[in-house]
């Protein structure tokens, strides 16, 4: 028994030390470093029109990408769990691709597709629609990298609740849409919201894919994460920290939302 206690304590100690060194330490130190050069510099960085524009753009992209991915995620989840169609297994596997794929590769593929000489790029260019180095490409890139989160949360929940309730609703005369609105959606609502939170976090924080397709046009296509890099490259470390701290605060809000929404089984 004594040996077991000792082992438990040493494992706990190791786990906590590792988390401190890799995760908590760095995040904690940045809040202190940010104010090295005084609050004035933080304030001037954050109120700089370029910074404000970057945050607004980031929120715009998020506001477009999240609803699209939510609808897509629910639709794909329903299709995979409730319907049978050819190549369903393939779709199920491909849903996870954005999780396993480098955002740089995502960015590159959009760059090639919509760029000059790309399969779709030339067509859009002839019609005077700017995709690359503009909002559409950045939204597409963000949608791609945050695609699986809602579907991944919805699928297990749909499996768990089964389709008996839906069948009961059908026998009571409910149409497909009514059944979805009044039976299915309420049952999966927490999974959807949790998926939305994860999607939002990813949209706000995306760097690699957006960096490639945005073209980094000052005051036009700079997102918050790109601005962080910009300040760092211009040796304005406190400026980079200032924007980071705002992003980190957003992340902590997301984290708090996750704690309250986390599916039961994941909480210890």
């Amino acid at each position: 028994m004594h040996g077991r206690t000792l082992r438990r304590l040493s494992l706990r100690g190791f786990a906590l030390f590792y988390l401190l060194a890799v995760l908590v330490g760095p995040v904690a130190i940045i809040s202190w470093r940010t104010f090295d050069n005084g609050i004035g510099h933080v304030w001037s960085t954050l109120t700089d029109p370029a910074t404000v524009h970057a945050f607004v753009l980031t929120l715009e992209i998020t506001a477009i990408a999240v609803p699209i991915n939510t609808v897509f995620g629910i639709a794909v989840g329903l299709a995979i769990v409730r319907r049978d169609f050819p190549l369903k297994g393939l779709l199920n596997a491909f849903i996870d691709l954005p999780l396993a794929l480098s955002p740089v590769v995502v960015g590159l593929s959009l760059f090639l597709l919509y760029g000059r000489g790309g399969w779709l790029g030339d067509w859009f260019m002839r019609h005077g629609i700017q995709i690359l180095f503009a909002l559409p490409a950045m939204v597409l890139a963000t949608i791609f990298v945050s695609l699986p989160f809602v579907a991944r949360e919805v699928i297990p929940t749909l499996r768990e609740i089964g389709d008996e309730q839906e069948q009961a609703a059908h026998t009571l005369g409910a149409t497909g849409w009514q059944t979805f609105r009044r039976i299915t959606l309420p049952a999966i609502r927490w999974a959807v919201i949790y998926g939305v939170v994860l999607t939002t976090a990813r949209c706000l924080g995306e760097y690699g894919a957006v960096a490639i397709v945005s073209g980094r046009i000052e005051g036009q296509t700079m997102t918050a994460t790109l601005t962080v890099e910009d300040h760092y490259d211009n040796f304005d470390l406190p400026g980079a920290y200032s924007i980071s701290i705002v992003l980190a605060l957003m992340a902590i809000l997301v984290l708090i939302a996750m704690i309250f929404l986390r599916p039961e089984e994941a909480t210890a």
Partner: protein
Amino acid sequence: MLPIAAVVWESRANGAAGFWSVVSDSQAVSALELSLVCALIVAGINAATGTIIAWVLVRDDFRGKSLVNAIIDLPFALPTIVAGLTLIALYGPRSPVGIDVTDTRTAIVLALLFVTLPFVVRTVQPVLLELDTEMEEAARSLGAGEGTVFRRIVLPNILPGILSGVALAFARAVGEIGALILISGNLPFKTQVASVFIFLHIQSGDTAGASAIAVVLLAISFAVLLVIGAIRYFATRHEHAR
């Protein structure tokens, strides 16, 4: 799916010979090698630390445990570029603990450990939580020591969870850019990983070269998805019957 096809198409632009000349170009090879080696190291470390953290979160009990449990998800919520910057703040040139890893391979491993931390923890935790502790008690009543109980009872049951977590962490580590771009220094042949290599080649207009390396990363991603699928299949094999 179309964008993916475009990359594969573009990678052929210079013909098969062109593809090989890029992929076997020494700078590209060293970037790919670095990405893979670092990802393997990180996956290996995660297998151990992730399992330990999951074990502590499920089986141990102490004040503030739920807070620790919540913090695990921080890398999922925090923008990766911010993650890189926080590491610079603690382990950079003005490190308060006197450790400066910027522009080294250690920095790459460290940054990747940060962003991949939740994967193994979050795949092992639910399995461990569901694991019937009676199995372990049964093994003990049959005379098994603690080491045997872990090796023969606990490990075989959580191994699929560990492996899928490790596979996801590996995939993530191979493709990561945000957390690395600031801290790694991107020195060719030394600290330039594959994703940064692609990034820089796009910016210099060499999309064919970038695509060639991208196709290699794409292949790795597909392989990882395949492996995860296989793990899922084998893990549930005994439970399908009947």
